[in-house]
């Protein structure tokens, strides 16, 4: 067992960051069980749980039990309720420290609590259908402590952080306690309720009812089981919910972190526990393909994870330590290869899946046999695109100099960029991206090229082109935003009846788009507008079809090889003449 994942992360180039809310606001009591969500613009938001107690937990030889034993909640002695409050925070994208914080105001929906635990516990924060939600367990509305998951919409702005709605998720059949459901980030209103064997529930926000309780009225929404498996893995302890479930990997896999609790009693003393966590990875059909051995984050007996993101080749994991401290761990993805993984009968992949949502660019080496020779190819020392898109554009336009481009989803100014080479050949154009980090990087590295920080979905492209001196015909259009449904939304926003393009590269990310919406719709739009699909399902490897390439037959007369019949078209096979 790995008893110090943080050390392994740091050894592999990761980092650990403490999360702090000023002690004047908390009396210095515990901050713990942080959840994370990444906004579309790249902002990382966190929910930090504030417990109004300090956890006394004597470890090791336990020589110094307090008067109530080795494990005790040190509440105010004049109010022994275990009270939870929640702070929504923005984290600094570089340091992951708390940049700003606001306590969630729940007063609009609060009723007088009547059980020992007050407030919404172990919240996960996320957006579904553009709405910001927190979801956790509440046990304070019934005098027997019956607990239910509650889905609460939050209005969050500069001076406002209010719980606007609170819906209690009812279950059928009745149970005493529901907790630690894991929201599936890319499947709105779905949760993994149990991980072993898998049970996924869907909540129905429209199926509303009310329930009267002693101190008020609850808003209820229903839930139903939509996936239930019976392939239980034989493990010493039950897998309980911990982090959210996030998309992960090339083929629609999903990942989460589970927890398990090893309870025991000291002779004559109180209950105590060790908490362990595991990485769990499912394939696109929710079959378990990898399960790590249990690990601890920092070697403490009580640790609890509520947050997991995948960002820039790192897993960003947040957790509480002894209920008294909160941390964010940046774990380079390669670290997963250093973990121990279970071998169980259904596993056909004993090695952990290496996520591959980004591949290093396939670089053209001078002298290689490019399939499409063009004027000036011999002068090109290096290209920058991920899959030769820049060379494809030049091939279509016979090495054109002084061309024009519209680059939607600019990303990095050079690494994997499709217009960097064109710019070196005196092309001009506009590059759009919503990320601040991209803007800074472009200012530094391509200061002479026009970069506009803007949401491509709402941009007025006619005005943009006019004000930046671009004609109605533009040689190259790049469409590449993450996630892919935003690329489709941006495409729909471009007036294709007014603006025309010579070459288009369109990223649909079919390899992770289960229902094929993005590829199907984009093809219809572009082909209806007169563009000819010449390279379909371009892939940076042999199994990640992610882009389609088009030409406009009205303007492109070059003899471009058409290859549209493969489910995966390895870019190197298409561009390099083997």
């Amino acid at each position: 067992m790995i008893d110090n994942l943080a050390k392994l992360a740091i050894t592999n180039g990761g980092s650990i960051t403490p999360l702090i809310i000023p002690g004047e606001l908390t009396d210095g009591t515990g901050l713990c069980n942080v959840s994370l969500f990444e906004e579309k613009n790249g902002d990382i938001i966190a929910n930090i749980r504030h417990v109004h107690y300090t956890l006394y937990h004597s470890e090791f030889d336990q020589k110094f039990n307090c008067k109530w034993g080795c494990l005790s909640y040190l509440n105010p002695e004049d109010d022994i309720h275990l009270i939870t409050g929640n702070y929504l925070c923005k984290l600094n994208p570089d340091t992951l420290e708390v940049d700003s914080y606001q306590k969630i105001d729940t007063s609009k929906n609060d009723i007088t609590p009547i059980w020992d635990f007050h407030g919404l516990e172990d919240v996960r924060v996320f957006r579904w259908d553009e709405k910001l939600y927190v979801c956790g367990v509440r046990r304070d509305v019934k005098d027997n402590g019956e607990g239910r998951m509650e889905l609460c919409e939050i209005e969050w702005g500069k001076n406002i952080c209010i719980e606007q709605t609170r819906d209690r998720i009812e279950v059928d059949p009745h149970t005493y306690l529901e907790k630690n459901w894991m929201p599936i980030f890319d499947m709105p209103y779905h949760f993994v309720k149990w991980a072993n064997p898998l049970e996924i529930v869907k909540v129905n926000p429209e199926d509303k009812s009310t329930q009267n309780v002693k101190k008020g009225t609850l808003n209820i929404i229903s839930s139903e089981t939509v996936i239930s498996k019976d392939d239980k893995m034989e493990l010493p302890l039950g897998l309980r919910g911990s982090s959210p479930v996030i998309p992960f990997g090339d083929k629609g896999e999903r990942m989460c972190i589970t927890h398990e609790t090893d309870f025991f009693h000291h002779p004559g003393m109180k209950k105590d526990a060790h908490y362990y966590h595991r990485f769990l990875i499912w394939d696109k059909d929710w079959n378990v393909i990898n399960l790590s051995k249990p690990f601890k984050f920092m070697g403490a007996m009580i640790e609890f994870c509520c947050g997991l993101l995948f960002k820039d080749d790192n897993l960003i994991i947040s957790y509480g330590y002894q209920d008294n401290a909160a941390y964010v761990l940046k774990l380079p993805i390669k670290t997963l290869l250093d973990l121990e993984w279970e071998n169980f009968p259904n596993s056909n992949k004993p090695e952990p899946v290496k996520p591959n949502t980004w591949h290093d660019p396939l670089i053209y080496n001078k002298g290689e046999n490019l399939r499409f020779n063009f004027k000036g190819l011999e002068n090109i020392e290096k290209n920058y695109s991920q899959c030769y898109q820049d060379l494809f554009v030049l091939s279509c336009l016979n090495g054109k100099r002084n061309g024009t481009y519209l680059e939607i989803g600019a990303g990095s100014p050079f690494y994997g960029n499709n217009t960097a080479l064109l710019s070196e050949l005196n092309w001009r154009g506009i590059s759009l991206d919503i990320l601040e980090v991209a803007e800074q990087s472009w200012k530094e590295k391509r200061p002479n090229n026009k970069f506009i920080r803007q949401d491509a979905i709402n941009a007025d492209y006619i005005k943009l082109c006019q004000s930046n001196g671009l004609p109605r015909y533009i040689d190259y259009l790049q469409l590449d935003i993450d996630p892919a449904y935003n690329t489709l939304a941006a495409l729909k926003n471009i007036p294709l009846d007014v603006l025309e393009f010579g070459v288009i590269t369109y990223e649909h990310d079919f390899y992770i788009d289960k229902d094929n919406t993005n590829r199907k719709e984009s093809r219809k739009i572009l082909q209806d507008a007169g563009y000819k699909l010449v390279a379909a399902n371009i892939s940076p490897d042999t199994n990640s079809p992610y882009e389609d390439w088009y030409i406009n037959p009205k303007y492109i007369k070059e003899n471009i090889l058409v290859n549209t019949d493969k489910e995966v078209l390895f870019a190197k096979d298409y561009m390099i003449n083997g």
Partner: protein
Amino acid sequence: MDNLKKYLNAYVNDPLDPYINAKLGEEYELIGQGAAAHSYFLRAAELLHDKDPEMTYCCILKTWKQLHKTTRRLEWEKGQLQTAVAYLPQRPEAYLHLSLHHSNKEEWKESYMYACLGLLYTDKEPLPYDVNYPGDYMLIFQKAFSSWYIGQREESKELWIQLSKMDNIQTEHMNVIKHNIKTLN
């Protein structure tokens, strides 16, 4: 924050080093994060109990100090001070805080007793970290204060006078001493 991060990384490198646990606890205390500080000081105490008694004792008092600042946990505070006394009865600091604890509750007999016990163990080397112990004079101060309320008024007066002649007394305490000498006479 820089020091906190420094010691956090050191902790991650070796979570079983008690002195790093204590340093991390101290950094958390400095930024008002008492709960986190409490966890690391308690770990340090547990890891050191059979190796470094003075540091262990100091770390137990540090766990007390965090909750003392938070307030509203008086029963636990008393118990934790008793833990410190039980572990190392030959140090004065926990006696002082027990004396203060009882005088705050106007339990004068107990306050007096702990002040007297503490005075048996003065002139010790200072502890590695601050545990709200201004000096041995504070035990005399507590004895003077509590003795007044248990009918030992002459003893109390003598002690206030003794205190008024001592050096290195914090201004706030000296002001009380002078005030008491003036009013009690």
